[in-house]
């Protein structure tokens, strides 16, 4: 049974979601069954994490022939790159079933399908399979924002859908180009990512295909200036959906870059790395600055999330082990901090019927447990040592310094930008005098506290004992960087392109 763990983690939620759609379950029954399914996935995820050896290769691999005429296979696997993204997708979901008042059956069905599709996209090692899950992922999101979202949900839904679909179409075109190129060079069809990394692409078409993929991922991450769908979508989506979007879906964008672009387009990436790195840091600064001007807490956090994603993406473009490992670690850390903050804001909205920062105040006195939890997640989000947020941010800045001193300096300003808007928000929401509305603010109930406690503990555990996590992801990061360096050097000999790759570290 355990050798099919990944398939179970993908199809159990999808099937459960479809079952909910087809049969007349009551709203609360669908909530409970969704919770049970997500708990099963959670345990499978934890088992998988504990059993993961961290050798650097694909583990838990499954592979079955699927569309043989085109060499498309149903193949899955986990390595250090996907491990923590997978964990975020597997273990965070039960929370959205336990907090908040009950929503309708369709909402829970959509949530389940999203989870299955996300895990599928993370585990797929065949590009076509990845693409299919990537597309399925979008559908339930479309419904969740469009049907269950806030008052301005429709423009937000149209925006996110058009944005991501155009990205997907570009990627599809790129995918066809890659498949055909492989067929031309090797005389057979395959979309296996390991095989595809043997491709030798060059010339204008390669650059074009590179940008097709890059834009698709850049929209998902989102990388500046493709982020403009994000504030609207994050604000209008129900809080549990926003949580899923920021904690997991955005990470799949970064993951896609590492998984597909780094091995296949190593040369192009090395050539345009500096450009992309600038997009990352400028996005971080731009969204961080925008965050301070927001009056709506959720919108502020949406900008904050986009700001962090800029730094996380930067970790990929610096092309050294430290930055890449930092990026992979930060993917999980960010899900536990900013992701959870979205849930907290959802709770506050449910209690107060408002998200306006000005309507709050003095919550720290009314709800000490809630305030403490919120503060810990917030401190992780601003990267305080001892919380999960520090390790990744530090490694990325360290790596960025190696890549380019100037980029490193700009990346470092995130230390300052983050605290500016976060502390000011915290002051107005949790400190100062309580207003009429917050006078009766309820502290976390037992079930809410129990829901959040594991994540809060995880934030601290990842900050104090990060090595057990890093140990599992670092070998793959090493391997990835080594392969990329090798390819880049090979090309360097032929073309003398100006390539910035870390070739000095011996490991």
């Amino acid at each position: 049974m355990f050798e099919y763990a990944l398939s179970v983690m993908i199809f159990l939620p999808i099937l459960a979601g479809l079952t909910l759609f087809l049969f007349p379950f009551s709203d609360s029954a669908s909530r409970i069954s969704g919770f049970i399914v997500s708990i099963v996935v959670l345990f499978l995820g934890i088992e998988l994490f504990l059993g993961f050896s961290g050798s650097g290769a694909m583990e838990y691999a499954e592979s079955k022939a699927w569309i043989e005429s085109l060499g498309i296979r149903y193949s899955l696997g986990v390595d250090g790159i996907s491990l923590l993204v997978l964990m975020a997708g597997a273990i965070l979901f039960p929370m959205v079933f336990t907090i908040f008042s009950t929503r309708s059956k369709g909402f829970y069905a959509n949530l389940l399908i999203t989870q299955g599709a996300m895990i599928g996209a993370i585990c797929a090692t065949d590009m076509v399979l990845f693409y299919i899950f990537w597309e399925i992922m979008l559908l339930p999101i479309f419904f969740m924002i469009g049907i269950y979202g806030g008052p301005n949900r429709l423009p937000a839904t149209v925006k996110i859908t058009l944005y991501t679909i155009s990205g997907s179409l570009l990627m599809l075109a790129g995918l066809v180009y890659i498949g055909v190129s492989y067929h031309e060079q090797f005389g057979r069809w395959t979309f296996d990512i390991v095989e595809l990394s043997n491709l030798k692409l060059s010339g204008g078409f390669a650059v074009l295909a590179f940008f097709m993929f890059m834009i698709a991922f850049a929209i998902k991450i989102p990388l500046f200036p493709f982020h403009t769908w994000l504030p609207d979508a994050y604000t209008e989506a129900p809080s549990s959906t926003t949580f899923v979007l920021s904690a997991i879906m955005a990470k799949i964008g970064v993951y896609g870059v590492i998984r597909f672009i780094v091995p296949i387009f190593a040369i192009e990436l090395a050539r345009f790395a500096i450009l992309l790195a600038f997009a990352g840091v400028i996005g971080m600064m731009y969204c961080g600055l925008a965050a301070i001007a927001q009056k709506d807490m959720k919108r502020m956090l949406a900008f904050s999330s986009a700001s962090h994603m800029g730094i996380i993406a930067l970790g990929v473009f610096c092309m050294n082990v430290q930055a890449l490992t930092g990026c992979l670690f930060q993917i999980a850390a960010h899900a536990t901090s900013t992701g959870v903050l979205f849930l907290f804001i959802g709770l506050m909205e449910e209690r107060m019927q408002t998200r306006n920062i000005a309507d709050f105040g003095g919550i720290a006195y009314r709800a000490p447990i809630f305030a403490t939890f919120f503060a810990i997640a917030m401190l992780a989000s601003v990267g305080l040592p001892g919380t999960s947020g520090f390790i990744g941010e530090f490694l990325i800045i360290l790596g960025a310094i190696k890549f380019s001193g100037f980029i490193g300096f700009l990346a470092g300003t995130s230390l300052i930008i983050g605290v500016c808007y976060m502390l000011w928000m915290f002051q107005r929401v949790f400190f100062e005098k309580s207003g009429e509305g917050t006078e009766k603010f309820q502290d976390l109930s037992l079930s809410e506290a129990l829901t959040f406690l594991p994540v809060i503990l995880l934030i601290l555990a990842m900050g104090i004992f990060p090595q057990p996590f890093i140990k599992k992801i670092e070998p793959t990061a090493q391997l990835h960087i080594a392969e990329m360096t090798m390819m880049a050097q090979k090309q360097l000999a032929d073309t003398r392109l100006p390539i910035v790759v870390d070739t000095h570290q011996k490991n």
Partner: protein
Amino acid sequence: MEHTVTYLGFIPLLPLLGAVVIGLLHMFTCKKTPLPELFYGALACIGPVLSFFLALVVFFQLKGLPAEDRFLTHNVFTWFAVGDLHVDMGFLADPLSSLMLLFVTFIGSLIHIYSVGYMAGDENFGKFFSYLNLFLGSMLILVLGSGPVVMFVGWEGVGLCSYLLISFYSKDTDNVLAGNKAFIVNRIGDLGFVLGMSVLFWAIGASGFDYLSLKANVAGIPPGVGVAVCLLLFVGACGKSAQIPLYVWLPDAMAGPTPVSALIHAATMVTAGVYMVARFSFLYAHYPVAGSVVAWVGILTALLAAIFGMFQKDIKKILAYSTVSQLGYMFAGVGVAAYSAGIFHVFTHAFFKALLFLGAGSVIYALHHEQDIWKMGGLKEKLPKTYMTMLVGAFALAGCPPFAGFFSKDEILFSALATGHTGIWLIGVLVAGMTAYYTFRMIFLVFHGTPRVQESFDHAHEPPAVMTVPLIILAVGALFAGFLNLPGIFGGNLNVSHWLAPSLLEHHPHVSVWFELLAIATSVAAFAIGITLAYKKFGQGATEPEFTGFAKFGYHKFYVDEIYNAVFVQPYKAFGSVISRFLEPNVTDLHIKLSTWLYQKAGTAFKVFQVGYVRIYAIYMVIGLSLMSLFLSQTIK
């Protein structure tokens, strides 16, 4: 030689555990039935006191080792290892960190005890002690960390506690703003720290990123890079230790409870920057250019803060500026490579400044939260113990022989002179005079003369023993601590300097006795002039003057806060608004707007062909079929 001891990790761990336990207890009980204060107080004091005893154990164990071999380590676990970067959660006790350890735990314990009295009756009594324990634990991580990254953990930890404790009375917006300011300004410094650490790592960190390895590999660092690392790290020090241009947060930090001002914003945390420079003396000693920058920034800060201190009327603000000023002295000391002199001043300053703050706390406590010195007067009859102990502190701060501050400050000034930094020495002497002036201005106005507000004078009473006993102990320290490092000219042999020598890279310049005597005489003269001026002006009851001209300029701190606000804060906020109101909706997604516009235009363009007449469509069909036939006939042939 086995250097590993397994109890070092407990020194920071004990207060941290205390913080967690007290924090949890407070969190779950504060809304129902708060636990008794004495229980929290006792729980809070256990950690610091035990840590102090462990610090003594460390000290004596180090003392038993031969001088060149004096270090103990404890690597608790591998914190993270990525590529060449290997960071252990490790601790290092050597002469330098053990000295810091001793006074931090000692003064920390005293202030915990004092706070039990001072905070009595506060609704957040438990929270306060949880934060205070958390602070002490972080400070001990900072001091004991075996490498820069672990130091940074403590560095940020104390910053967090500083923020939490400054905004402790968080119902008042001004207090929270002061806390935010402290955190954000410190973060600006932290940027320098992180960048400096990163550059240092890429230069020589690959074969071990802890102090001992870095020290061994320091020769491999290119000169330009070395200076850059020193200056970047110093930016961090400027933030934490309130030096120009990042000093602005410290005076505002006085919004916190007074014991916090004594512990965090006078005795321990703010000296972390000086400690860092001394810790990296193996680096700074190689780059006199960087050292000079440190020294000049330090002495100019000392001067600026002394000017501000002369015109303040809030007793805590006066002490805050005097702290900034004294920190400037310390940087001047470590800047001219007199590391042990700088650290010795950290040590003595901790005693007399904690004493002065706690004394001020007693005054504030006695007068029911009155902080304006122009509303005090004649208090020496009402608060004799507070008066006597504060007087000792004042003499120490003003640099009167033989009080502690005299020896340590003199050592710095003398080192500046002996290493040829005459300008720094001259400014230093001037500041010494100003220090004596503003310190005794405060003493005379608070304790001498006649009461200015009769009502609060009548109600004033000496605080309980739990508060006065720590004052007396600190006063003993302020009186005698200087003798620990008595220079040869007074018959001593620089015990502290010799103790610190294995940790630091410094040379003691040899100069003639007359030269030394001259330097001492100048310092004493500066003190005498300062105190005389203060006595003439404030000794026999003075009335509050109207500030005009330069005094007004000084009272408003040269309007630096207003300038920063106009130059940095407001534009920052405005830029945020511009982005979210204008750039974001109109400019940033121009590429999206352009493509939708193109899409629509293309639709309009194709609309031309959709005319709706069957005959036109028939023509399209004929054209299409002809083209296809043409194509087919060409390809088949």
